[in-house]
């Protein structure tokens, strides 16, 4: 779930971790009632500061994606369909934002980018 943390990104690590969890919930990879790894486990696994994980979990809690029960762990909440689809749209925007930025850097025209996107959406060149 956390393969692609990027320390170079201007998005802080805690926000990247929270985004990954939100996406996993939106996509159904994480279901209601499942537990997230403990702060200790996730901090060691990702080799990030424990405070970063705490901050990510707090944000998820504030957004209603998870709830923490003291001594028991952090659990995925019942997330509404609306919230899940909104989260998927947010993820799509994030992906496209990066794509557009890189394309600008390379001087790719908007039309070429649209064509390439359509091509990939239709199964690529195989």
């Amino acid at each position, binding site marked *: 779930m956390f393969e692609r943390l990027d320390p170079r990104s201007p998005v802080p690590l805690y926000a990247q971790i929270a985004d990954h969890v939100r996406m996993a919930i939106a996509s159904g990879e994480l279901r209601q009632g499942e537990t997230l790894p403990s702060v200790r486990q996730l901090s060691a696994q*990702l080799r*990030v*500061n424990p*405070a970063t994980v705490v901050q990510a979990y707090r944000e998820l809690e504030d957004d209603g994606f998870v709830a923490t029960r003291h001594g028991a762990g952090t659990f995925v909440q019942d997330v509404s369909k609306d919230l899940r689809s909104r989260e998927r749209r947010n993820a799509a925007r994030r992906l496209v934002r990066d794509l557009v930025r890189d394309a600008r850097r390379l001087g790719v025209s908007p039309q070429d980018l649209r064509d390439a996107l359509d091509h990939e959406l239709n199964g690529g060149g195989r």
Partner: protein
Amino acid sequence: MTFAVETQQLRYQAGKNFALTDVNLRVPVGSIYGFLGPNGAGKTTTIRLLLGLLRAEGGTITVLGESMPAAYVTVLGRVGYVPDRPHVHPSLTVGESMELHAAFYMRWDARWAGELQRQFRLVDDRRVGSLSKGETGKLMMLLALAQQPELLVLDEPTDGLDPVVRRDVLEAVLGYVSDRQASVLISSHLVHELERICDWIGVMDRGDLMAELPMRDFKNGIKRLYVTGAPELVGETPFTILSRAPMNGSAEQWLVRGWEPEMRGHVESIGAVVTDVIDLDLEDGFVELLRSFRDKR
């Protein structure tokens, strides 16, 4: 106590060509403080001064609220130290070196020491002198952690270790910090390794602590800008220009600190255009910072 370590005007002369000058270092309680600098910058010397292993020629040192070196007997009992060179006698076995440490440290946790020993696969009756570099590194970390320190001082703890061992060692440190909220001062010239871990950064060069700031400020602020049409003199800017380097035509590369996206407008107001803004990772930022600092001297 707000700082686990605090020095004021710390001074030390080491030989003719190297001196620490007026080092004011502050490690907030509960932080993981990355102490960065090239080899020979004075990181190890500073650490030795903090722990009373060298005597300062001026300034004050406070560690865990107590004055050093006066209070070293009580302070050292609360500090876990992994020195740059192993300090356990090679003729002792792994088990014996653990017993020896247990005798010195009141808060030694034998159960946890045993757990770490299994995790690190350190065989009880192996002689320390026959351990590989990686095994020695793990033993040093075990000895520092099992005494349950309030402050961990790690001097290049992963230098020369293979990636698997580095990972084991860092995971053990992070696990301990999660459980105990200890403070950590970790020195390294392997900048990328500290990038995800630290929340404070101190940068030392040639005996001078040239920057000390929260990691997020360090990373957010420093960018490389591609600028065209900039005049020779740009006057006052809301950000700091650390360096300017010409490229083709009127294009330039700027290294800046304190950059915010709204500041594009300011650049345009002096007749220039920002064509691209590149995020730097910690290593790039560190290298560029050192470079700009050295150019100024």
